[in-house]
């Protein structure tokens, strides 16, 4: 590579980094003050792009129209962020952190459908920036003028933010609230106004980031989750809450990506490596190195100790198998009761598999205290492992299903090694980043995985071809898996895990190696999720990268949260309600996501302890005092 082409790629990378920086800065700012991880930040970016597109169409493709549209999009998205804060989040600041997450995820669903309804499913290609549509020649390379403009805008914005945060009263309040918002309130500052303001600014940054990409990137409905994953990587690398950190990390990652694309396919030691396809893997390597060297990111600091009024969490009882066995047997009888209802069978099979999936995630989220945003990685990896083992290695399906969980467990072991080094939001973001990487490896490895088409012909052998038989197999295996996980939770291992979650220092002091336990739990949860994934593959006959997508991960997250993290059996209820509801809605309307999102919002606002937790509380209230 010549120096000139290096320079050209550098500039390209910097231009791409500017929007990433804005989204990540907004995310960081909002998290710092309100402790809300705004899952909808990618959606706000996406909307910013769409709104800018439509505004330019309306105002005309003139410089004034173009920059006017950028400003309009920024303000509209900022106002939308403020609205989300006022209408939803304000009501649940006192609820557990995870519920706020669930709420912002519901917003993702709603925004996606709103965008679908207004702008349609087709990609929309925006105009070039009027007045900046040509290229400049730098050392014989043509560099778009607009890229240069972006390279200037990002540092200016950083400067502006920095001045706002360090030179104004608002900035002092924001920084003070980032450290101790309760104290800020006790000093007479109206936290609600401050929070709404922070949401406005954070959302506006996302909107601006999206709008500025108008000439570079077509607007499409997949941007929301793609951008949030990138933003998570940037915030984790830069350090949560640090805006300069976000800037440096965005540049680092933007440039690394651009270089990978520029390298294209190179032969290293006789091996053909396609670097352009490895972009995400390289991004992951950067992140891994940073996290090992600096666990809280380049400019981050260990999260301040949360001031929380001591909560008393009562230990739920181990579910009694004598009570559950008849229940499972009853389920097994359903195919006899409704022999011709294929739809019901498929639904029940799905529910059984997703129950196992949700319970395995719950093991991480509840007793281990590790929230995973990327549990589908293991589900998807195992589904693919099983399918590939059968189709390409010609192993019998039974063997493939038995081996797949070990593959998923091994992957979880690798990812877990990094994840258990972190905690809380950092850990969650890291799991999401890993899942996104897994997804893109599956998506891009055409020769092995069939790429975006996935693999077909993944059918079980003759003895399982009957849907009823397959359901019985699934039911038995999933029930066993769930039983084993529960057993584990109430074994010394499970108690040690909980001790590690509740007071890591004390647990260490009595000789519990918390990190090791968590690592093991991580791998175990991954393996059981994998069993679900393998069963799922053969129940459908075909698989696609969707199985490892963020959407699949968040499905599991929603199931657990709907059921209630504090309960043991909640995730099963969550999985059943979720799967059934999604199915019902998807059959009735194209806009099932938004309906679903609204249902989640309603549940979150009504039952901040999850459905099972909420019902249990209602029961305690109405039960006659005895």
């Amino acid at each position: 590579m010549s120096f000139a082409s290096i320079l050209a790629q550098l500039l390209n990378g910097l231009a791409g980094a500017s929007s990433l920086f804005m989204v990540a800065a907004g995310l960081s700012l909002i998290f710092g003050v309100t402790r809300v991880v705004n899952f909808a930040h990618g959606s706000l970016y996406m909307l910013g792009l769409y709104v800018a597109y439509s505004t330019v169409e309306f105002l005309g493709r003139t410089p004034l129209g173009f920059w006017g549209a950028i400003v309009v999009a920024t303000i509209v998205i900022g106002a939308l962020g403020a609205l989300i804060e006022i209408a939803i989040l304000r009501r649940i600041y006192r609820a557990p952190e995870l519920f706020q997450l669930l709420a912002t995820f519901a917003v993702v669903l709603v925004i996606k459908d709103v965008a679908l309804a207004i702008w349609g499913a087709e990609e929309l290609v925006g105009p070039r920036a009027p007045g900046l549509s040509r290229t400049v020649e730098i050392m014989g390379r043509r560099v778009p003028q607009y890229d240069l403009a972006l390279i200037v805008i990002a540092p200016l914005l950083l400067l502006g933010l920095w001045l706002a945060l360090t030179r104004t009263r608002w900035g002092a309040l924001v920084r003070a609230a980032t450290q101790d918002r309760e104290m800020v309130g006790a000093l007479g500052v109206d936290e609600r106004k401050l929070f709404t303001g922070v949401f406005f600014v954070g959302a506006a940054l996302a909107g601006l980031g999206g709008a500025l990409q108008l000439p570079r990137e077509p607007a499409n409905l997949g941007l929301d989750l793609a951008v949030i994953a990138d933003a998570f990587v940037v915030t984790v690398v830069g350090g949560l809450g640090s805006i300069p950190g976000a800037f440096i990390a965005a540049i680092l990652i933007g440039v690394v990506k651009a270089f990978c694309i520029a390298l294209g396919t190179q032969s290293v030691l006789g091996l053909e490596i396609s670097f352009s396809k490895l972009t995400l893997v390289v991004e992951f390597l950067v992140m891994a190195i940073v996290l090992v060297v600096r666990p809280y990111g380049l400019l981050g600091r260990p999260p301040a100790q949360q001031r929380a009024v001591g909560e008393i969490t009562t230990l739920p009882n181990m579910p009694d198998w004598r009570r559950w066995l008849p229940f499972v047997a009853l389920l097994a009888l359903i195919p006899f009761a409704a022999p011709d209802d294929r739809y019901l069978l498929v639904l029940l099979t799905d529910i059984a598999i997703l129950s196992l999936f949700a319970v395995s995630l719950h093991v991480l989220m509840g007793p281990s205290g590790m929230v995973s945003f990327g549990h589908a990685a293991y589900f998807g990896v195992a589904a693919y492992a099983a399918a590939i083992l059968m189709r390409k290695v010609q192993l019998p399906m039974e063997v493939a299903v038995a081996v797949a969980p070990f593959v998923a467990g091994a992957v979880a072991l690798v990812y877990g090694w990094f994840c258990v080094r972190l905690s809380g939001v950092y850990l969650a973001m890291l799991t999401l980043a890993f899942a996104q990487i897994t997804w893109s490896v599956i998506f891009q490895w055409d020769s092995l995985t069939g790429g975006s088409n996935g693999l077909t012909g993944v059918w079980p052998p003759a003895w399982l071809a009957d849907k009823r038989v397959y359901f019985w197999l699934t039911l038995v295996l999933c029930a066993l898996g769930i039983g084993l996980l529960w057993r584990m939770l109430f074994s010394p291992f499970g108690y040690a895990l909980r001790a590690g979650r509740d007071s890591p220092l004390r647990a260490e002091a009595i000789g519990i190696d918390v990190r090791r336990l968590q690592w093991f739990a991580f791998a175990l949860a991954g393996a059981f999720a994998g069993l679900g994934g393998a069963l799922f593959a053969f129940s459908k006959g075909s698989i696609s990268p969707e199985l490892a997508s963020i959407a699949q991960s968040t499905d599991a997250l929603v199931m657990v949260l709907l059921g209630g993290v504090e309960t043991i059996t909640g995730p099963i209820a969550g999985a059943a309600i979720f799967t059934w509801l999604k199915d019902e809605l998807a059959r009735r309307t194209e806009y099932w996501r938004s309906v679903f999102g609204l249902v989640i919002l309603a549940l979150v606002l009504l039952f901040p302890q999850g459905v099972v937790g909420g019902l249990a509380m209602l029961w305690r209230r109405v039960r006659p005092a005895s």
Partner: protein
Amino acid sequence: MMLHVEGLHSYYGRAHILADVTLEAREGEVLALLGRNGAGKSTTLKSVIGLVRPSAGAITFAGARIEGLSPFRIARLGLGFVPEDRRIFTDLSVMENLEVGRQAPRGGAPTWTPDRLFELFPNLGRMRDRPGGRMSGGEQQMLTIARTLMGNPRCVLLDEPSEGLAPLIVEQMAKTIRTLKAEGLSVVLSEQNLHFSAMVADRAVIIEKGRVRFTGTMDELRADEQARTQYLSV
């Protein structure tokens, strides 16, 4: 009457911490809230400012009922709170810490500016741009009081202002509290240190295990040997 607390009950989770606490602070007086470690002094002050939501009881401040209001509304009525663990904003400079506490001037209460506060706490004036995290414990204690005064309160709740301070600084703190009183502020101060309270307080309330055991003037407390030995560690 500046502050009147009647029949206050507070819980942490299921633990009943305050049981039927009643006390009052008159206009312009310094009231000492005394008690051993864990007696419930901090919980009382936090319940008054709204950081802990009392489950029962009435709190009247300057004629307005404030129980159940959010802390910022209570603070805006002119009730200042200085927490025991200081809770300085460590990333913010001294001036910025003061800025966060600033509220509009209030009738019937002294008005504070950074310059006036630097007269009261000369040390702070010499480190205006120093981040709060790089100050000594004593300096932080000064700053946390100054920060609350920036809200121009009529009454301040001081949680253990003498805790962990060197004897010389404790003297200074006592002088500061007397100055606040001279300015017309009412002060409710929680203390374990009877000696310190004796230097500044007009009246005292003793609580033990979340219940009020003594109410009276400092002179009455001096005379009541039994109350002192039974409820305070002297």
